[in-house]
């Protein structure tokens, strides 16, 4: 099965990017022309470094201490006990939903008790 021009170009670009030859037997004229444009892009699309003043200013701004959100303070001891690799979002969601359900049940039970004790 013959490959599409998109596939052939992708393979040729990968080859050149890995330091392989710019053209090999089997590359047709269409691909060679596009590779030529790719070569032009590779040569002329130069890395433009961030201006020094901007880089320093942004770096300083990012380094400024920021107060952590209140809930992160509360979660601190728990986060220290559970290493990053062992944290599971599903488990966290289950614990959170469980807590919400427990609060909701507590509220319902409290209201029922109040209703039962209220004078007619």
């Amino acid at each position, binding site marked *: 099965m013959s490959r599409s*021009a*998109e*596939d052939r*170009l*992708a393979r040729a*670009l*990968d080859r050149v*990017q890995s330091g392989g030859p710019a053209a090999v037997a089997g590359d047709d004229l269409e691909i060679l*022309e*596009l590779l*030529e*444009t*790719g070569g*032009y*892009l*590779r*040569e*002329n*699309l*130069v*890395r*433009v*470094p*961030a*201006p*020094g*003043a*901007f*880089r320093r200013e*942004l*770096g300083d*701004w*990012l*380094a400024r*201490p*920021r107060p952590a959100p209140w809930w*992160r303070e509360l979660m601190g001891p728990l986060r220290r006990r559970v290493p*990053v690799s062992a944290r599971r979002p599903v488990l966290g969601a289950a614990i959170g939903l469980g807590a919400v359900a427990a609060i909701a049940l507590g509220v319902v039970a409290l209201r029922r008790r109040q209703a039962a004790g209220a004078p007619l």
Partner: protein
Amino acid sequence: MREMKRLSAAELDAERRLVEAAQRDPVRFGELYERYVDAIYSFSYHHTGSRQAAEEVTAETFERALKHLPGYRWRGVPYGALLYRIAASVVSRQRRRPPFLELSDAQPAEEPGPEEAWLSADSGRTLRSALARLPDDQRTVILLRFEGGMRNAEIARLIGRSEGAVKALTFRAITALRGTLSREVVR
């Protein structure tokens, strides 16, 4: 051209440790910033064609990355991939706002740098104008491939498209660029 460095397994592991250190102590984020600020600025600069816009995109990218650092989960790819993804999304959102104000020639930049050299060169001007005519998604793919030095699979993961879609975008973009840039320029 300096592409985003391909990391060895040991370098990747060192970067994972650096990210985890930054999660514990945000001061260490400065090391990640120093590692990637030029790459992100350059990507933003070529994407927007404006120094001011590139600074805005770069600042917002690192601000968002720092904000979301505590919840970041390592997936075995360089941290730069996340930064490129944020930058591409910021650029795309900025495009929907009124156009950026360009610095005119009468207002020289306070610190002439390599970008001025790139802009003033004929090849830089021609390429910049050709890139500006590409649709956003095609320009993103071209910059990630030729400036970021990424492969299709990496670009696909980064922009959330299939590898086939990335191949098609690359093909269409290079074909369009070939048409825009004259044969004389390319040769």
